[in-house]
């Protein structure tokens, strides 16, 4: 699953940024001349004099983001924390880009020495990774529209309402527990920008995220306000592979030293994140007291994979139904629109043909993911489509372009003799299409259509980027929860196969039936 930690401005820069493979950069002046790293392809052999740290540059300011003045460099408080750790270890920091939701898995694999990206402390992380002491304490904050400030003060005020958050976060866990307690409907986003823009548009009624993100969301979206109620407390930590406790312990010592000598304070002050919570946290840690793990952490101690599988089975089943319904409806739309496009391209006057050809090439030549973004987020100011409708339209219209090519080819594959016979019997062009050419073309088209439907079934997983929770998304939530992809992956694969294999069989039977 791709993490789409999009910031609002300049998507092109982001795309270009991900493409950049290497680019040497220096830390800002105030941090001295030490090299903090640059984008590089994944490198398994981590040199002893480098500290490779993983983060998601799409997380944006103030965590890690591309330097607006030089997109080959990253800036953010995490960059400076990484520099601080590297300096203490006598190493040179090097940044490695990793998707936010796959940071845990990458840390466990040892892709980087330490992950730093606004990563929250949680019992699940403690149980399967070596986690540093916390270096920042945050509060979960409820953000609402100005007009609702008096109505929606806490989660309990949001009964039956849609509340947005980021997947695989403490806020998400809080929302899931609020779902059973207050019947709140969690809406999962893959980035921390669109929850706030969608709140303004009325697609959701509140956003629950940590204070740092909430502050940024309110700053960028006039008309929103953060509620003073404290919904929960959490900590940012660094993560390393579970066997890497020696490095973790050394980093803990460096962090404690930086809390004592004020270097951490300086970093957070520079990023305007310093508040009264931090000195209290640091004092507690320096006195040797352990912080309790994130407060109001609703998920209990981690359970075994099998127990979790049984617990998640109904949710996966529901998600599979979403996948199936979405795929069937999208395919129906793709078939209907595909037939119209193909008919227009075969029978239409030249301008119509040109227009339709251009449309087909536009849709086929651009990524489905981009189309979904444009449809749901880009057009939101013009038409406010519900997520499921946007997913249906995006998938359906995208596949319609491919279907239309299949039908056009199939129409043209019907022998001319069949059309001559229809004409001499007095059938009109329309009757010929409906009674003779269409049905025959459909038989040519059936095998490639089945292929497309199976492909659509799997492509439907992309709609999770516009908040529709389908099978793959539910699986990734499951995987994040138990910290392994093995069992969730196998269950998810089995469900996709259970959906697609009967389709292939049905198609074969239809084809045989026609041949008789």
């Amino acid at each position, binding site marked *: 699953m791709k993490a789409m930690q999009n910031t609002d401005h300049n998507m092109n820069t982001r795309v270009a940024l991900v493409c950049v493979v290497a680019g040497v950069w220096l830390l800002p002046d105030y941090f001295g001349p030490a090299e903090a790293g640059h984008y590089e392809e994944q490198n398994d052999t981590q040199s002893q004099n480098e500290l490779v740290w993983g983060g998601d540059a799409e997380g944006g300011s103030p965590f890690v983001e591309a330097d607006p003045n030089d997109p080959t460099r990253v800036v953010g408080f995490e960059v400076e924390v990484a520099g601080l750790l590297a300096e203490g270890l006598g190493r040179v920091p090097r940044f490695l880009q990793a998707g936010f939701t796959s940071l845990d898995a990458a840390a466990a694999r040892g892709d980087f020495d330490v992950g730093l990206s606004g990563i929250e402390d949680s019992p699940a992380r403690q149980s399967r990774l070596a986690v540093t002491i916390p270096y920042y304490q945050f509060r979960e904050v409820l953000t609402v529209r100005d007009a609702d400030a008096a109505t929606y003060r806490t989660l309990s005020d949001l009964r039956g309402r849609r509340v947005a958050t980021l997947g695989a976060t403490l806020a998400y866990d809080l929302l899931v527990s609020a779902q059973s307690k207050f019947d709140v409907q969690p809406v999962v986003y893959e980035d921390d920008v669109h929850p706030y823009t969608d709140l303004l548009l009325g697609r959701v009624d509140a956003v629950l995220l940590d204070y740092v993100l909430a502050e940024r969301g309110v700053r960028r979206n006039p008309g929103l306000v953060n509620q003073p109620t404290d919904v929960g407390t959490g900590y940012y930590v660094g993560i390393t592979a579970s066997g890497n406790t020696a490095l973790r312990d050394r980093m803990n010592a460096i962090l404690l030293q930086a809390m004592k000598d004020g270097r951490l304070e300086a970093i957070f002050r520079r990023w305007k994140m310093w508040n009264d919570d931090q000195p209290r946290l640091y004092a507690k840690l320096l006195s040797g007291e352990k912080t309790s793990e994130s407060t109001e952490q609703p998920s209990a101690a981690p359970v075994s994979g099998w127990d979790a599988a049984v617990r998640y089975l109904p949710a996966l089943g529901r998600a599979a139904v979403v996948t199936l319904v979405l795929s069937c409806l999208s395919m129906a739309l793709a078939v209907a629109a595909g037939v119209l496009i193909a008919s227009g391209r075969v029978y239409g006057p030249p301008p119509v043909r040109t227009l339709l050809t251009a449309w087909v090439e536009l849709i086929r030549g651009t990524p489905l993911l981009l189309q979904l973004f444009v449809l749901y987020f880009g057009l939101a100011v013009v038409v406010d489509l519900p997520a499921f409708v946007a997913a249906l339209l995006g998938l359906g219209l995208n596949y319609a372009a491919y279907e239309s090519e299949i039908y056009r080819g199939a129409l043209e594959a019907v022998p001319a003799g069949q059309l001559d016979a229809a004409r*001499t019997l007095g*059938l009109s062009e329309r009757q010929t299409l409906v009674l003779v050419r269409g049905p025959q073309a459909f038989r040519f088209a059936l095998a490639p259509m089945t292929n497309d439907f199976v492909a659509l079934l799997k492509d439907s997983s992309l709609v999770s980027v516009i908040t529709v929770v389908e099978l793959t998304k539910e699986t990734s939530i499951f995987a994040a929860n138990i910290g392994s992809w093995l069992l969730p992956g196998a269950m998810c694969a089995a469900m996709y196969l259970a959906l697609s294999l009967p389709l292939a069989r049905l198609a074969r039977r239809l084809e045989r039936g026609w*041949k008789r």
Partner: protein
Amino acid sequence: MAVLEVADLEVTRGARAVVQGISFAVDRGESVTIMGASGSGKTSVLRAIAGLDPIAAGGIDVDGVPIRPGRTPGGQVRRELYRRVGMVFQFHHLFEHLTALHNVWLAPVHVLHQPRKVAERRALELLEQMGIGARAHAMPHELSGGEAQRVAIARALAMGPQLLLMDEPTASLDPARRGDLAAILRTLAGGGCALLIASHDEEFVRGCADRVLTMAEGRIHRGVTG
């Protein structure tokens, strides 16, 4: 009285004239055969009369419906033309996705707007007349060449044409079946239907033609009254 009149007909394919300066007429109930080697232009004449290919010059008149040089007939002319002309193709061109019976009743229902039951009963009668009533529910790919051809004839006759065009009707028949076909065609002509047949099978032509036109290189060489 002529059902079909062809005057100075010219048909071109690209820059090449495949039919040039042909004139002839076919009367009601008459059976006329165009003979000639492959490539002599027989099929082109038939396709022009059936309104499938445009004509370059001259004119065709099918029982008062005119076909003029330019594009193939459309609109009202097209509708009127196919009330009068039926065609049986060399390779039959039965609709592959429909049963033999459905092939026959399709056009009467959708073009003549006959009730389906009526059209279906009439279609079965026609297939029985052709001696293949038992094969009514077979799919085209299950039929032999002779059976397919008789379904194709029944399909054309179901529309009640005054002129039936047939392209190389004996191409897919063994000798015994050729005699059967000649008998069917004689019955048709006896019923008042005019026949124009393109063939290069002399023996068959002798058995069923009232008149023979011989074509070579796109022109009629001689007309023989049978």
